[in-house]
Every structure is written in C-alpha cells, then in structure tokens.
C-alpha cells in the first residue's frame, strides 16, 4: 500500500485551505498510512489558545488531536519554520515532532504520494 503525506502550509483562518486540507487528511486515513507535515504558516493551525469564534470561524485545531485515533502516529513540522515564527512545541495544541530540512527532504522521498494544501 502506498504511503501518503499531507502537507499543510496555510495559516488557519484567513482561508479554508487548512480546514479543507484537514478533511482530506481524515479521508486519507480511511485508505492508507498517512503522515502530516506542517510547513511555513501551516504551523499556526496548531497554535494553542485560538479563539476564532470572534471571527465566526471554527477552532478545528482540536481535530488534529484526534488524528492519533485515526492512525496518524506523528505530526511533523519544520523546526526552522517553527523558530522563525517565535514558537516552541509547547505553544501548540498537540504533540509535534520538529524536524530539520534534511529530514523534511527525506520525508518527501519516503512517501509515495504528497497531498498539499
């Protein structure tokens, strides 16, 4: 079976890319082994303490916490993108594994199909 990787690159509430991308991740877990990688502003999707109700949007960051139950064992993020944004893993709502650029390159190589949003 092919290994799938889903790459999220957009900040959460200015567009629907994050939320709709997460829908694709959930669908992917029904078919195959899935990995999630957060790059660039995609990391903001996991920021703890979001109160998007003020914007009229949904706090879907909690769904990332449920991905473990759907068989997504690890959520990766770019260590440098995290640092550039002044964040540390404890600022995020779920456990993420920060990885360096070489490891990111390896992740792309290890997976058969890349879905991005």
């Amino acid at each position, binding site marked *: *079976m*092919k290994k*799938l990787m889903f790459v999220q690159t957009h900040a959460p509430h200015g567009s*629907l*890319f994050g939320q*709709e991308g997460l*829908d*694709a991740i959930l*669908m*992917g877990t*029904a*078919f*195959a082994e899935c990995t999630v990688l957060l790059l660039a502003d995609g990391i903001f999707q996991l920021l703890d303490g979001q109160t998007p109700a003020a914007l009229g949007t949904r706090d879907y960051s909690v769904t990332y916490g449920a991905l473990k139950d759907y068989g997504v064992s690890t959520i990766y993020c770019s260590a440098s993108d995290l640092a550039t944004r002044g964040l540390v893993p404890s600022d995020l709502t779920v456990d993420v594994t920060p990885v360096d650029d070489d490891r990111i390159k390896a992740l792309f190589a290890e997976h058969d*199909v*890349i*879905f*991005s*949003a």
Partner: protein
Amino acid sequence: MKFAIVVHGAPYASGSSWSALHFARAVIRSGHEIYRVFFYHDAVYTASALMAPPQDELDVHGQWVDLSKQHTVELVVCIASSLRRGMLDETEADRYEKPGHNLDDAFVISGLGQLIDAGLNADRLVTFGA
C-alpha cells in the same frame, strides 16, 4: 503512465487552473493517460456552466470542457468545497432547495475519497496550488 491532476486555484485568481490545463494537454500529447482531474478548494468554481468570458480572452471553463469531451477525461469537483461555495448540480440544488444549479455536466460532484483514490491509483499525482 497514469497522471492524476489536482487543481486548487479559482479560474481567474491565479495560474493554477490554466497551468493544469496546459499540463493535462501535454500529458495526453505525450501518449500518457489522465486518471482523473480533481478540483478542490476554490478550483470548484471552474465547473460553473454560467461563465461567459469575452470571446478574445481565456475561457478556462470552456477549455476544460473541451478537453474532457475530446479525450474522455474525468473532471471531479469536491462535494464539500462545492456546496459551501454554491456550485450545485441539479440533484444537490433539489436536496438543498436552492433556486437553481450551475454545475456544467462535464463535471461530476463527488467526495474526497476520489482525491485519495487518485493518489493511490495514478502513477503520479500533480497538484497545481492556488
């Protein structure tokens, strides 16, 4: 080789749809096969049967329809993305009691399972981001 193509961008907001169309034509011209084209996010607007661009301008919608008819390419729009953006076929318009429908019948409304299926069954999945 079987290619799956994923389009993310609204027709005139970025080069996404137009580039994907050129790529699709190149795939066919090179003797390869298109497994499916999946329109996601704002790309679902590409399916509007009501687009009427000036005759001397790019007709993104019309070109996709031509491609689909000439080469029997499956064009799928994501149902969740479509419904929230008001892209409805007759069945969905009836289901949600909306006054009209606008999805060109060259396109099919279906679920995200079709996106994952395309990734699993095509040899290459190529995404044209917004």
